[in-house]
């Protein structure tokens, strides 16, 4: 089968969830109660906003991840043709990893990888 048939898997997945939700809608009991619709927090009413600003640590990791993720776009094609290209490819990837390693080292020394 060709890659277009991926849409099939999309449809089957959506169908499974959609069908189960519709089925449960008819089968499951439904009794509304204002207490039930509250967000869970130890049983007492929730205090304050939930959607607020979040720890910056997560964003730092996301940015470092982005750098390495873009870099893997270059390594994947390299890995496939590595055998044919031979020594040239190896020397090039050593240089590439050296630069990359400097980047990781910089982030490390700057404390971007430290959790506070």
């Amino acid at each position, binding site marked *: *089968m*060709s*890659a277009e*048939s*991926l849409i*099939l*898997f*999309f*449809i*089957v*997945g*959506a169908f*499974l*969830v959609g069908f*189960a*939700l519709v*089925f*449960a*809608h008819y*089968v*499951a009991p*439904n009794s509304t109660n*204002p207490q039930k*619709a*509250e*967000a*869970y*927090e130890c049983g007492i009413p*929730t205090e304050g906003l*939930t*959607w607020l600003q*979040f*720890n910056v*640590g997560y964003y730092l*990791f*996301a940015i470092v*991840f982005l750098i*390495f*993720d873009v870099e*893997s776009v270059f*390594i*994947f094609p390299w*890995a*496939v043709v*590595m*055998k*044919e290209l*031979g*020594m040239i490819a*190896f020397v090039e*990837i*050593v240089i590439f*990893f050296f630069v*990359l*390693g400097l980047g*990781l080292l910089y982030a*490390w020394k700057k404390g971007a*990888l*430290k*959790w506070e």
Partner: protein
Amino acid sequence: MNFSIYDFTSFNQWIDQFLRSVMSPFWAIAVEMVIIGLAILLFYALVGLFLVYAERKVCAFMQNRVGPNRVGPYGFFQTIADFIKLMLKELITIKNADQLLFNLAPFIIIIASFMAIAAIPFAKGLHAIDFDIGILYVIAVSSLGVVGILLAGWSSNSKYSLIGAMRSGAQIISYELSVGLSLLTIIILAGTMQFSAIVEGQANGWFIFKGHIPAFIAFVVFLISSTAETNRGPFDLAEAESELTAGFHTEYSGIKFAFFFLAEYMNMFIVASIAATVFLGGWMAFHVSGWNGFNHIMDFIPPFVWYIGKTFFVIWIMMWFKWTFPRLRIDQLLTLEWKYLLPINLVNILIMAFVVLMGWHF
């Protein structure tokens, strides 16, 4: 026409020709799609049900208990009973939740795991789609699930959910790097990203043996990081029960909760089958060169059984992790990835490239 459980290629061609001889090409393709869709759905449901049962049994034996043993022989139908119970539970609508995103999240998680299954080779000729870039595709699609987790946590409007989702996001994107890089080590050795070609390349020895020490290191790193990527084992901070109730799916009830649960087990199945395919030879039998009698007996076992056996072996190792290690703290988790696994991986790729270059691999 000879059917064989050792090679499904002729079987597939036979179905294709039969359908094309009875109806027009368009309808033939449509019917094939329906057959494949139903088969995948059935397989998905069976694996999901079995894995939930297996997890409870394995957990029970590790804790010196019996586990589920009431419903059916050895409690085998316990999961089906649980599924029916979850189906009959009320779907609670949270008052201040973002309704659209709240309902969208289970769809995204389940669809991501379905699309990842599309590329996995189960036996010779028994795969839905054989991509040229199979490994890259599976990595890309399986990481779509994190979008569903973040949406679930964010839209529930509950603090536990939000903290769980944020942790899960940081964890999954971090460990995704290690998953990709450890698979890269094997791509260098195999020289291809196509799953069928990778399995064929292991006909005279699995890559974990052929690749010398770097391949073994890559396997261990892959096991650790894929356990983390599926939010399992010692890395289940996203749903740490003792501090976050249930993490990102705290507010989900009934069948919606069941889908998050199912997706976790299916993701575990997907990463285990990638580990089995890339490192342990997929559906290839275990051969020892020179032992012709032994190899002949091994060839007698059907490829599908080999595939399932290896996959469940990896799954069992992951369950073993979960029930023996204590949970990590978030700073330990991120330190493990960024200061240990990532540098090890980068050096490991260089060593593997050098080994391949010198022809030192077997």
